[in-house]
């Protein structure tokens, strides 16, 4: 696809100009039903980069693992990954000065392989053919996502249905990327309010379903969902914000009862307490859960509720620190036990 070439050119250029030591992206494994992450260090390999609408794992997580003190990395990200990287930067797990994020505008990713597919708001491009978008193929978290444009990345790329790719720089570093690749920025303002509205409506519907239940009913719903859990740690392993090497959930921490299946609800609640305030709704947890537990729905709901409570939006501003580990001037002025 033409659009992929633009991004491949950018990747090759920044490697050539030694702006970065490596480019982290997705590539085709053995065939189009097999998408795997790849770390490119040789500009010849830039041709392997794939930007079809799949997200098999979180590149933010890989970036925090590979981007060391001295290594500069470029990452080809969707907005969810870009926001996750902002959250990781707040926790000092990566240094945004060493990361060049090349963002791709995203309207959803497919849950299962569908060939070379690109998702647009109402349509999808499958192996070159434009078709009406069947929302069932999208990951559930994508339907709730309000951030299609990676404004928090250094570069934003917009893919159009005819395969064109419009590129714009959001930061100075983005501009240095574009000049290295000898690409002129093309500003084309896009009104994403219908997308945001749709996402918020979807959130209202999904979270409303949970909130609409009577408390006992709600509790039983969650107990029933967590009864399916086989403690594979997939949710924690794939969550970009879960970076602790000495995780609370491991049996040697003696917190969650070992040898118990399903694990007690404390397993999920601990994770909810630890990162619930910063969940960026990337949906990797639900992608990784073998038992189809609506983990992403729960964590996103928590993050939205806490967002209202603490006036915080996860993943946008690296200087806005996570609410659970910050206090503000406002806090110091209040006297009561409540936040109001």
């Amino acid at each position: 696809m033409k659009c992929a070439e633009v991004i491949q050119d950018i990747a090759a250029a920044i490697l050539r100009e030694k702006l970065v030591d490596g480019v982290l992206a997705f590539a085709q494994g053995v065939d189009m039903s097999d998408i795997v992450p790849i770390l490119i260090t040789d500009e010849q390999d830039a041709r392997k980069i794939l930007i079809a609408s799949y997200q098999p794992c979180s590149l933010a997580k890989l970036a925090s693992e590979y981007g060391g003190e001295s290594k500069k990395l470029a990452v080809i990200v969707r907005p969810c990954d870009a926001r996750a990287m902002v959250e990781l930067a707040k926790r000092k797990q990566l240094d945004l000065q060493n990361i060049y994020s090349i963002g791709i505008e995203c309207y959803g990713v497919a849950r299962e392989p569908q060939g070379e597919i690109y998702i647009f708001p109402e349509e999808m491009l499958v192996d070159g053919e434009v078709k009406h978008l069947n929302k069932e193929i999208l990951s559930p978290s994508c339907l709730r996502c309000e951030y299609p444009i990676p404004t928090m990345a250094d570069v934003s790329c917009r893919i159009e249905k005819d395969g064109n790719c419009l590129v714009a720089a959001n930061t100075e570093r983005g501009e240095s990327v574009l000049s290295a690749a000898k690409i002129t920025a093309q500003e084309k303002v896009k009104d994403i309010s219908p997308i945001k509205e749709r996402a918020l409506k979807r959130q209202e519907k999904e979270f409303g379903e949970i909130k609409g239940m009577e408390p006992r009913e709600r509790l039983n719903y969650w107990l029933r969902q967590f009864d399916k859990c086989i403690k594979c740690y997939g949710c924690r392993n794939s969550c970009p914000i879960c970076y602790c090497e000495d995780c609370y959930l491991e049996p040697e921490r003696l917190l969650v009862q070992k040898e118990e299946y399903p694990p007690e609800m404390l397993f999920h609640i601990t994770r909810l307490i630890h990162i619930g305030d910063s969940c960026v709704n990337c949906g990797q947890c639900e992608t990784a859960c073998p038992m189809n537990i609506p983990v992403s729905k729960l964590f996103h709901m928590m993050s939205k509720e806490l967002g209202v409570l603490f006036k915080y939006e996860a993943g946008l501003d690296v200087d806005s620190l996570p609410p659970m580990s910050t206090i503000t001037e406002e806090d110091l002025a209040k006297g009561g036990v409540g936040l109001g």
Partner: protein
Amino acid sequence: MVEFIPTICPYCGAGCSLLLEVTDGVVVGTRPRLGHPISQGKLCIKGWNAHEFIHHEDRLKKPMIKENSSFKEVSWPEAIKFMAERLGEIKNKNGPDSLAFLSSAKCTNEENYLLQKFARAVIGTNNVDHCARLCHASTVVGLARAFGSGAMTNSIADIAETECIFIIGSDTMSQHPLVARMIIMAKEKGAKIILADPRTIQVSKFADLHLRHKPGSDVALINGMMKYILDKGMEDKDFISKRTEDFDSLKEALQDVSLREVEKITGVPVEEIEKAAALYAKAKTSSIIYAMGITQHTTGTDNVLSCANLAMLTGNIGKPGTGVNPLRGQNNVQGACDMGALPNVFPGYQAVTDEGVRGKLVEVWGVAKLPPMPGLTVVEMLNSVLEGKIKAMYIMGENPMISDPDISHVEEALNSLDLLVVQDIFPTETARLADVVLPAASYAEKEGTYTGTDRRVQLSRKAIEPLGESKPDWEIICELAREMKAEDFSFTSPEEIFEEIRKVTPQYAGINYSRLNQPAGLQWPCPEESHQGTSILHGKEFTRGKGKFHPIVYKEQAETPDDEFPFILTTGRVMSQFHTRSMTGRSPKLDTEFPEGF
């Protein structure tokens, strides 16, 4: 430099594919693989930690020969020469049948094929067996008798499409988590789950009916269900008349079954048996899933035949969402059986007693003759050792010191051998008794094919170089064979071995490495290169033509509780430990979850 190499999980038989994260020649992590039909981007805790044991310090790195009760490290040429001489000696002195081989359900198809070829073509004995004897041997025999093919009839993915699932003797959520995923998905689509298990297990919470029958009473339970189905006319008369034979003998035998008796034997109330039978028979599609709970009995084969009877009675064979589905334990136990690592069959389940088959193989293998009588099974081998008939054993990738019954018996037997060769990746309990220990390469260090429980042949790629001086098992066997002057063992790659496998195994004839270069692999039988693989067996007709009913009469267990021994003990599995713990015991994340048995 980081790379993600696709391999097949080395643990259970579900056959999930995963990506090994390799940095500078070291495996540092595992990632799930999107787009795989079974794992679908998910893994269980064992899959997520399948990399932990690879670089463990216990890994065997040099060949060793035992001298005066302690191991001395030697070079490969020395080890190979020593073994070739000793094996040759013992064969010449005591005859080929004084040697026995245990192949490995964890090694690739290529390696299993080579070991049984070595035993048969180079040594001249059919004494080849492996751990399937301890688990699904009843399946291989039972389903072969009933259907003509001893393997899972349907695919794992179509379990999610069924309307009713009858789980007997399988703690699916602990043993085959990604298969349990399909069960839960079916349930969420409205399927009914009937669980027959003496214990309360995680999947009981999702069962619509949990029959807690007494251990060992499976035949009685199923006979009771069949009786009720016949009494109420719920059987599939069309299917029975067109596709099966010997129904009358089953009908006659069931006439003697009374549900009141069954209640007494199994401890399950009559109403529940009736309800289970009605659920199973009336659903449009019903699937039976079973595992060790019914196969590890003296009446194991009877239990399997009963399941086959039940499925045939209600026409639940050959369609999506139906079938008799044994869940095989090891990642390549299906493959090891397919490759003929069994005492009575050659690759492709062709009988050793069949002259025509022997004639064909003699040509392909370039030997004068092949042994015509079936060899000894695992348990028989060890008994034979104590009787003095077997003098040497070659054990590849197995740990009978933990996995076989009656360990003191096993230890006595292994200690009394003239020569014991153990080829493994870790110094297991069996390896410590050996005379020669050969360091083998783990699954991440070699290329090869593995066959999962739903007959899916998949290609696993090499991620890193073998550690230390370890070698892939196929290289070791080839070197040993060549040292013993065998021709036809000059393979230079697993792909070459597979090309030979295709020639002699009809079910694998249409499979080749380039066709396997896609995540889904190919399900056998795949007779030609244009064939897409077979996801559902016995669609139009059974492998043996018509399905055969077998009237089974309930037999009491070999040992029942009495005043002196009043308890029934049964075995079970846990999620994070696997088999003899040689691998999971050395994976910290897996070991801390369940550090001890209980």
